[in-house]
């Protein structure tokens, strides 16, 4: 049965979302999918150096990542996001890449701290000069280490990025 929307009272609550009282919501696939994704970013627990301590502090009660739906998962197969927290050494790079490869799509990478962004102070033989050399990084969080608020801001930037994605449903569109 088709509803003639001109005669019933559709209420526009925001751009692209209309409500037909009492309980019908009309919106686009992008909006509902992006809303679901950004409200439940589950990062995999993966700490590499001192930034991991700040990441743990951000996840614990005081800064409380849970209120944004950000819950750390113990397995990459159950996660959507990876926070590269710390210095990536060349010996560790294959492991980091393997953990990333196990995350199901859609997946996101947050480079946390100077070392993960650029290599930081370690312009040396054993340090990867930025994890974007082998990972597609979405958000760079600077700092050495970044405060938990900074990481929180980075995660909110990631939420904004997810909110404006269009048709990210498969590799073939």
């Amino acid at each position, binding site marked *: 049965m088709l509803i003639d929307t001109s005669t019933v009272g559709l209420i526009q609550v925001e751009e692209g979302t209309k409500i037909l009282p009492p309980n019908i919501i009309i919106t686009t696939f992008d909006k509902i999918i992006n809303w679901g994704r950004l409200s439940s970013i589950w990062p995999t627990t993966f700490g590499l150096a001192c930034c991991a301590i700040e990441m743990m502090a951000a996840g614990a009660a005081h800064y409380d990542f849970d209120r944004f739906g950000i819950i750390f998962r113990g397995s990459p197969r159950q996660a959507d996001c990876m926070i590269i927290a710390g210095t990536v050494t060349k*010996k560790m790079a294959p492991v980091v890449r393997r953990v990333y490869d196990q995350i199901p*799509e859609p997946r996101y990478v947050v480079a946390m701290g100077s070392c993960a962004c650029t290599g930081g102070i370690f312009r040396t*033989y054993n340090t990867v000069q930025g994890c974007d050399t082998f990972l597609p990084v979405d958000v760079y969080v600077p700092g050495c280490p970044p405060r938990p608020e900074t990481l929180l801001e980075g995660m909110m930037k990631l939420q904004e990025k997810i909110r404006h*994605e269009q048709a990210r449903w498969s*590799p073939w569109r």
Partner: protein
Amino acid sequence: MAVVLTRISLPFKGLEPTEIAEKIKEKFPNEVVDVTNFRDQVSVIVKRGRIGDICRYLHDEPVLLFEHLQDLCGVDYHGKKEPRFEVVYNLYSIKYHHRIRVRAQVPENDSHIHTVTSIWAGANWHERECFDMFGIEFKGHPDLRRILLPEDWEGHPLRKDYPLKGPEPEKDWHGFTEVLTRSKELREFEWEG
């Protein structure tokens, strides 16, 4: 209320560092090359040949009793001094609270020295690190593998003639270059928004 702070008296009086150096010199007159004193830290520079005997003597002698190897590390004096390498033993006596530093000279060609793992078991990983970073071979070591770097890494990075920023990208450790090429190959399978 008065609080009286007294210095805790040590039950066993140790030897002065210079006295310990004299004892080593007496026992091994042909082995000791030099004794240096920098701010009351006495170093005994020895030849590498009988390092096992010297360490055994320092460990077992009742008045010395160096039962604790605080640290074992290597030094590279590339272009500054001959012989090029030194292996440094920082020793401490838990009973007598005295300490000494023994430095064994190791030349550049044929850089090896005997292990001290049979005297202090803790030297095992220290010697592995020294081997990893300086390429000094410890003869008689039970398990001489690299401890920090990947096992197929080329070169010894704390040597002064090793490039500071690491090897050239094409000559880099193959495990890392494989990751770079694989990430390029997998790029097309990423979901694009």
